[in-house]
């Protein structure tokens, strides 16, 4: 009998589900909203449909991310720090430093032999996070997904000195008024985010290989700006959004295997595919 394991990563902006057996069975990415977080069960159902599985086929479920406590049917909650490390280690075993740029936070994680040895998270504001890019994209009237390619057409990155989201938006608007090109401004914004993230992660001793994960990794302009900061190329996994969910599923599998080798059954939470009720 094949055992299936699910990992759910409920981030501040996106919800990610990964189902694995000995291989990847399905992965799904959808937006997190106040309703979506409440409806983690719906996202799970969709992922199960994709994999052609039923809920009872799942042997163990691990939830991670900002909304991990809002998954009533998860057997275990693990922080996204540990899950990202596990996920990246399985995909890119040479990586020693992970830079995760998420919707509302960014973090640096050091790993050795797949285990977290140190980590750091931004603790002030939206500076250096996906939210910063969202706000600027919005004010420039450019879709978020197009920021990366547009920035590559820049002649010269504009100088953006504010790290505060609100002030930087103001600065961008002023420079637009002064005739600066949108592409140059976007390139400048990427440099600003890269600088902010770099100064955060530098508190850990950055060692190559470096992997970039999270929504920020999908922005080629930001990745290039980070490479310039680090001084060497970085690795980006094929789907940088799902490494946390993948790590969660892998940890679930390890927990199950550890128990079975000891002749025990892991304790399940015993809840069905239901929605969190404490919101109502």
């Amino acid at each position, binding site marked *: 009998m094949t055992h299936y394991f699910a990992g759910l990563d409920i981030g501040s902006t996106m919800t990610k589900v990964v189902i694995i057996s000995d291989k990847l069975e399905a992965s799904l990415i959808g937006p997190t909203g106040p309703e979506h977080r409440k409806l983690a069960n719906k996202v799970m159902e969709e992922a199960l449909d994709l994999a052609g599985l039923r809920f009872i086929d799942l042997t163990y479920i691990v939830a991670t991310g900002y909304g991990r406590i809002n998954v009533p049917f998860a057997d275990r909650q*693990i*922080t996204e*720090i540990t899950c990202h490390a596990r996920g990246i280690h399985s995909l890119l075993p040479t990586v020693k430093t992970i830079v995760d740029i998420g919707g509302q936070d960014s973090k640096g994680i050091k790993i050795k032999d797949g285990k977290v040895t*140190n*980590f750091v*998270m931004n*603790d002030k504001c939206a500076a250096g996070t996906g939210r910063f890019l969202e706000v600027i994209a919005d004010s420039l009237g450019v879709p978020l997904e197009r920021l990366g390619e547009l920035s590559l057409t820049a002649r010269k990155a504009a100088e953006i000195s504010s790290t505060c989201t609100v002030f930087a938006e103001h600065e961008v608007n002023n420079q637009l008024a002064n005739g600066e090109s949108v592409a140059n401004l976007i390139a400048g914004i990427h440099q600003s985010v890269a600088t902010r993230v770099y100064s955060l992660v530098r508190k850990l001793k950055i060692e190559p290989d470096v992997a970039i994960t999270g929504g920020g990794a999908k922005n080629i302009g930001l990745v290039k700006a980070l490479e310039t900061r680090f001084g060497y190329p970085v690795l980006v996994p094929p789907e940088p959004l799902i490494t946390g969910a993948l790590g969660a599923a892998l940890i679930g599998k390890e927990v199950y295997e550890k128990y079975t080798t000891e002749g025990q059954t892991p304790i399940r939470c015993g809840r069905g595919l239901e929605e969190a009720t404490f919101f109502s």
Partner: protein
Amino acid sequence: MEPQTNGLATAEKYYNQYGSRAKDLKESGKKVIGYLSALGPVEILTAAGVIPLRLKGNVSEAITKGDAYMETVVCPFVRNVFDAAVKGRYDFLDGMVLPHQCDSIDRTNDVWSDVLKLPYWHFLNVPHVTDDPSIEFMKEILRVFIGTLEKFTGTTITDEAIAQAVKAHNENRRLMRELYALRTANPPLISGTEMMKVLVAAMSLPVQESSALIESVTKEVKERPSSKDMRKRIMIIGDQIDDVAVIEAIEGAGAWLVMDDLSIGSKMYWQDVDATQDPVQGIAERYLRKLKIPTTYVADGNNYEENLEARFGHMKKYIDEFKVDGVILFIYKYCDPYGFEVPAVKSFIESTGASVLYLEDEYSTSALPRAKTRIEAFLEMIA
């Protein structure tokens, strides 16, 4: 004084109704003087016959009135306590003593004094270096302080009374260390959350009552059935953490808080006052040289390493003695003195092999969910 048969319940009561005992004593005719920080010379207040009450804020309460007088650049702890005072929480006090610990206290002293208008007010000008002239200066300012208290209470504070108070407070410290020792067991006989309530209750009581409470807690936790719940052992370092919220975040994530280097915890209780010919000499030495706080600049080693050892060496001993697996450095935002020391403390502790989690946070539960993720990730890391 009520008989104490159940120390933990009594501690819980005084923790929940902070200052209620001092308020009762005030109603029965005693004078109560509030003080800020570990630098408050409680021996002298006790010798003066007044009840010392360590001031605290409320992490669950938003600052709503204090901001009219203090900008957000001031330490969040100081602003929160001040806000509580402006809202009338400390109206029953006869006065306050604010020792010169940091700029946030020193530069707001006149605001406190002017806004609160309590009958007695004193700013204790504690020096920040530990050389011999500073000890002389410290003795002088303690004598000035004694003089103001004599004037306020209308009674003479004799050296004999000070010596007696020193004895009583040393005994109080000894009893607290005895209780701390029960945390070296694995698992500890008293949880960090329970301990926080005891520490907070203890700093709100007259010294004899505080000692009786500690004794009663020690007896109770020794006698109750021991737990088999083995967890990772954490030490917390910081200034005035005086609420269980942070401790519950740590223990709720599956660890035990077994030791602290907090200004209401071990910093208060580890160092006795020596009984000296002039009792004020011993007090000056204890608060200036023995008390380890980041505002006191210690540089009597021959090199940087020796200075670090003099400032943080005790933390190494705690890690060893209390079998600490991980250390949480919990620093309030805008706290310059602690902030300056972060890189040095961090690397000093890491050199012992213990992992360090550095959290910079508010004196408020509002930002605690973010801290919780870091605490959980830290525990997963050292698991």
